[in-house]
């Protein structure tokens, strides 16, 4: 039996990044799932019976709470008096991060500077999408104050996406690479 639950992954930039699909976590999740399902059904039923879409919906059972809110249209938006309703599904499975990036662990910039994907102009990049990297392996350079600072993988995994172009400026904490990490690694 598998259990799907939100699981927070804290990345090094201090922002909370969530696994979108729910990873294995070692808690007794069957109960969790059941209670949440109950709560969700309650919320969904309430929504279905609601004469018009609510702007907020909270369902709480003891320590379990589902709270929904729909963003009000901004002043610039057309005069729709009622905000569009989000689908119900995200209530339970919802683990989307606050950041606009899709979920998944990333390797982030440790400093502001200019990102270089290869050791020198014209040279092949340190890593390509699809490459496996091991912890400590150099994957890029960030130039800051004329110093070439190596960027090393903090963890191992497979590079699924290079998020910054060669020569682009990056800010502190900006994701540079997206990684696919083995489940066992993630759970650690």
């Amino acid at each position, binding site marked *: 039996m598998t259990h799907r639950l939100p699981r927070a992954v804290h990345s090094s930039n201090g922002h909370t990044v969530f696994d979108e699909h729910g990873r294995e976590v070692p808690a007794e999740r069957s109960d969790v799932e059941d209670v949440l399902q109950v709560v969700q059904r309650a919320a969904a039923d309430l929504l279905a019976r609601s004469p018009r879409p609510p*702007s907020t919906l909270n369902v709480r059972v003891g320590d379990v709470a589902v709270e929904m809110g729909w963003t*009000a*249209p*901004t*002043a610039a938006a057309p*005069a729709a*008096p*009622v*905000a569009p309703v989000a689908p119900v599904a995200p209530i339970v499975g919802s683990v989307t991060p606050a950041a606009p990036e899709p979920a998944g662990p990333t390797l982030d910039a440790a400093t502001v500077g200019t990102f270089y994907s290869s050791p020198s102009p014209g040279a092949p990049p340190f890593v390509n999408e699809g490459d496996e990297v091991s912890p400590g392996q150099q994957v890029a350079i960030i130039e800051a104050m004329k110093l070439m600072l190596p960027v090393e993988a903090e963890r191992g995994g497979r590079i699924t996406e290079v998020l910054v172009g060669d020569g682009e400026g990056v800010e502190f904490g900006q994701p540079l690479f997206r990684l696919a990490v083995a489940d066992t690694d993630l759970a650690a």
Partner: protein
Amino acid sequence: MFDKILIANRGEIAVRVLRACRELGVRTVAVYSTDDADSAVVRMADESVRIGPAPARQSYLNAAAVIEAARITGADAIHPGYGFLSEDSDFAEVCEAEGITFIGPPPEVMAQLGDKTSARAAMTAAGLPLLPGSVEPLADAESAQRLADDIGYPVIIKAAAGGGGRGMSIVDAGADFARTYQQTKATALQLFGDGRVYVERYLPSARHVEIQVLCDTHGNAVHLGERDCSVQRRHQKLVEETPAPGLPRELTDRMGAAAVRGAQASGYVGAGTFEFLVDTENNFYFMEVNCRIQVEHPVTEMVTGVDLIAEQLRVAAGERLALRQEDVRTDGVAIECRVNVEDPKRNFAPAPGRLEEFVPPGGPFVRVDTHGFTGYKVPASYDSLLAKVITWAPDRVQAIARMRRALAEFRVAGPGVHTTCEFLDQVLADPEFADGKHDTSLVAKLLES
């Protein structure tokens, strides 16, 4: 000075009056309708009295309820703000009879100046220039048409009891006169219960310039310079500024002197505004007197340093004006933008609602007069003025830049809520406005384009 003042108004002006009271150590009574129970002035006032349900006729226009509220709270004066009962000479008379000071001119002065025809007669007598037209209300359609033909078109037909841009119609050609005349009379009767109208020459590209005066009960009067209110939409002012751009100092000084002459001739007391039209040849013509504080009074305050509401209170309490004309110095340029909860995209339809976000602008030389706050629900029952943003700078270019900065940082959001901020910015960005060469037709031109 008074001990306790009842503020017979709502919205930003009620807050403005309360602030002046507080700075002078005067206690305050807010009155409010059911819709305004959670308003800023009710939160801020020392006491508050609910005087009726949402409709203004049963609350803010309900003289009996306001007087009773003053009586049960022991207020010794009433500040009427603008609109509502502020120019109701009957109300001022009742206050007087009840031993409550009405903060404004004496009732008989209000009555004389509030009626456009008697005001015109008084100002003609005081030697102020008027536009060609009828001094007395028009007797009948035929004599009206003859007069209009004499003046030459376009002419404007105005309700004698009108004001604030209501009850007036422009006639471009003699053939249209009779019909418009009847319509305007009918409208005037409906709006003001008084069908008398008069006619005068219409100046299509005139500037609307007004003079602020301040008079005490001892016969002293000063003027505090002019305000240009030429940015109007359907006779509703959107942007006001002082000094009037491009007008020679010599001209505005003469206008100021004329206003003081008119005020003294009519026995005016308190803060008042003399409205003039200025044509393209810099001739000025008396239009009307507003016997109350104006919405746009802050621009005058910003360049003179004078707190006009505090001065109203002082002269109403019988104090002599501390200011002499030679003490009035104006410095720099001030602009006011009226931020309304209206949707410019839907023909400025009211767009009130709950302010989920409300972050007024701030910082150097920016003043905001508002009753808004985060979480406030702007009621639909009243006018749409949410905030006045006023900026000051040493010159007009900087004052405009500062205003555009301020409007850009004003954040107002909520379901169904729209403001005129962006539209105001369009006005400020207009080259004609930037050059100070605009007149009252500017907004119409902008909206057509």
